[in-house]
């Protein structure tokens, strides 16, 4: 791809991007949100039409008209949200729209046989007759890969393929990617995670503000150089952890057990402390947050706030007790997208602004203005719908919700998922400021560098209980993983 330009009414999304892909390589595409990665890949996969530039495939210039045309050229895309039909089987999904037919009926046996062939080629022992609905996320992803291969794809575009995978599943995925490379398939790999790039990538292209700033061999570059290129500034310290002075105990959890799978979880949390909670997917980390926040019923155990046992049976009770919950999925759980910045920000504390039954709009605006300014939320106004804000700014609106409700214990569930490097650093800074002001933080994260970089103390969970507790000084990636896996 040479000199690719793409303009939308009023915006230049891509301004002369060069991108080359060799046979059998994994080429990483790196850049902040809005740098143009997705736009570039959408042009390659036929979802968008380029405004200018040339695309050549095996030396011949091509004009990619639409996604079906891209597929027929051997370019397949696996999006973050899978395109699978849950109630159909693995085999039926792989051959969706191209079912082998016999006597006018779908030939199930042929579907399953040919699906099994493709899956075996990937080194998978997945039964093609199983419905997709019951598969793990990683397995569903493999079905997508198999579907692409069955189309004889020569170029495979993967958008954040590891976003929802556990460490172990990532290993499986990487093994499959190496297998594809060996068969001469070229892979474009989009990811925010630096660690992955060095493990799986051959070359890397960095995009910034719609331009390509360079292509490098992965072996000849390093994390800090790439980050500098991405954000055009030095981030010498990615995790600017400041250790706040710990105060009195604000939260104590004793013997928490739920039907959702928590078993006898106990820990305490002090003012100014960041408690990192690590563990594999399904280890019970989110369940713990839900139980503390009053979303799941407790079978037994108690939650004490400042030494006082509180019955927390609903989020309302949790908020009144001084808790705030920043959920993993901002859009599905954290924000009411069609509502304004102000309305979202004040939602948990409407009571505070209500007198004689009416919401005092002026006081509400003043409060909202304050947080927009303090947290530097980039929005054209308080009445802007949050759906139009960028990921990092949306995250700040969620954070402000709990600042406004004067929470003293913040539960962060995957605080930086889907957030670009620049915004990540800003969120870490905010966590530092919160801790310094005496707020206690529980941080659930699947990114070990984040856990190690930001926590004062680390709990590792396994199968619904606390497997180990480590002071941050003594923790290493290896130790945490050992605990999480139970080795």
């Amino acid at each position, binding site marked *: 791809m040479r000199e690719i330009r793409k303009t939308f009414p009023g915006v230049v999304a891509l301004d002369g991007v060069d991108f080359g892909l060799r046979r059998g390589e994994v080429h990483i595409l790196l850049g902040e949100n809005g740098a143009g990665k997705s736009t570039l890949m959408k042009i390659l996969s036929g979802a968008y039409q380029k405004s200018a530039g040339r695309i050549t495939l095996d030396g011949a210039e091509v004009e990619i008209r639409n996604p079906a045309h891209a597929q027929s050229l051997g370019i397949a895309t696996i999006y973050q949200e899978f395109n699978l039909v849950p109630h159909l089987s693995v085999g039926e999904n792989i051959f969706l729209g191209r079912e082998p037919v016999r006597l006018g009926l779908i030939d199930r046996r042929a579907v399953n046989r040919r699906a099994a062939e493709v899956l075996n080629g990937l080194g998978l022992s997945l039964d093609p007759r199983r419905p997709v609905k019951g598969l793990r996320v990683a397995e569903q992803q493999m079905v997508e890969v198999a579907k692409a291969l069955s189309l004889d794809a020569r170029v495979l575009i993967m958008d954040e393929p590891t976003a929802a995978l556990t460490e172990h599943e990532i290993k499986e995925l990487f093994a499959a990617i190496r297998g594809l490379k060996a068969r001469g398939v070229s892979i474009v790999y989009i990811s925010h995670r630096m660690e992955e790039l060095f493990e799986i990538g051959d070359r890397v292209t960095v995009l910034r503000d719609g331009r390509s700033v360079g292509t490098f061999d992965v072996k000849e570059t390093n994390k800090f150089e790439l980050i500098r290129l991405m954000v055009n500034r030095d981030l010498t310290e990615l995790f600017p952890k400041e250790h706040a002075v710990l105060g009195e105990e604000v939260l104590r959890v004793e013997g928490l057990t739920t039907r959702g799978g928590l078993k006898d979880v106990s820990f305490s949390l002090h003012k100014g402390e960041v408690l990192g909670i690590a563990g594999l997917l399904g280890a019970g980390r989110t369940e713990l947050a839900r139980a503390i926040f009053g979303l799941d019923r407790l079978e037994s155990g108690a939650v004490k706030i400042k030494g006082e046992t509180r019955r927390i049976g609903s989020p309302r009770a*949790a908020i009144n007790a001084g808790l705030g919950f920043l959920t993993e999925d901002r859009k599905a759980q954290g924000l009411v997208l*069609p509502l304004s910045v102000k309305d979202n920000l004040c939602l948990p504390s409407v*009571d505070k602004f209500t007198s004689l*039954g*009416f919401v005092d709009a002026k006081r509400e605006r003043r409060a909202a203005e304050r947080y927009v300014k303090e947290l530097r939320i980039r929005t*054209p*106004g308080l009445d802007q719908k949050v759906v139009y804000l960028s990921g990092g700014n949306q995250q700040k609106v969620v954070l402000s919700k709990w600042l406004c409700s004067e929470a003293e214990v913040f539960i962060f569930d995957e605080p930086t998922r889907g957030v670009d490097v620049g915004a990540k650093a800003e969120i870490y800074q905010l966590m530092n400021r919160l801790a310094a002001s005496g707020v206690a933080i529980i941080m659930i994260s699947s990114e070990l560098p984040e856990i190690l970089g930001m926590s004062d103390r680390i709990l590792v969970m396994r199968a619904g209980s606390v497997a180990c507790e480590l002071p941050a000084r003594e923790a290493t990636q290896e130790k945490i993983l050992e605990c999480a896996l139970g080795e």
Partner: protein
Amino acid sequence: MRARGIELRRDFFSHYARQLGTLSGLLGLVLVLWALTPHFLTVSNLLNVAEQAAIIAIVAVGMTFVIITGGIDLSVGSVLAFAGVVMAEALHKDVPLPVALAVALGTGLFCGLVNGALITLGRLPPFIATLGMMSVARGTALMFTEGRPVSGFSGGFRSLATGEVFGIPVSVIIMVGVYVVAHLVLTRTKLGRYTYAIGGNEEAALLSGVNVRVYKAAVYGISGMLSGLAAVILTARLNSAQPIAGMMYELDAIAATVIGGTSLLGGEGTVVGTLIGALIMAVLRNGLNILGVSSFVQQVVIGSVIIAAVLIDMWLKRRAG
């Protein structure tokens, strides 16, 4: 930043364009009918239109609340009939007028809260719960009256529909009152804020401490209660409560709501839009009647207007990106 500025301007444009769009639609309609028949634009005829609109307009307020939460209430017409006959029986037992009114509103409120309980505690989809209530309330009204209308009330009661204050029909005054209160509730109170939040994202609302069950049930209660209020006006106007009253009112109320720009997906909408929507439907009916258009053709026209209004609404939304 440039891109965001453009989005904002478009959003601003579409937000007001939709209100202005429906309003200019209404005004355009009035002008066309005025050109076709001068009698249309007389004070007495316009008050007549408002009077005709009042009942559907009041029911549509409750419908708007329900639809903003992302739900639907198919039972409003049947609840209206049920509340009407219960009140009529009470009036025939010579209960004082205020008590009879409380009986009508209370019956509606009760049916609405049952809907709310089925939806929040029973976790039924609103469509199913209110479809069931639609049949149950209608059947109960028929059983209660053995299928016969209950007629003949005091002049005091009938004046609720036939009376006038400074030349304005009482029913129109009640309608305006309901809209003023509903607008304030929706824009200025916690209940209103939560109504939008629940429709915009129920999960996020729950996690923000909104007692989703209580507020959802309350919204269905309001819808039922307003059906009860509409029953009072209709019964007073006809001097008769009929168990088969209010047939298909649910569809007219839904139509007024969506013509007014409320999205069936929930999370957005205004009662001002709904009022304009209800007036558009009443103006159309009235105008077509004056022009002597047959009721068969009227149905075709009204259906087409509903489709056109929603098409334009969706088109504006798409342009807003």
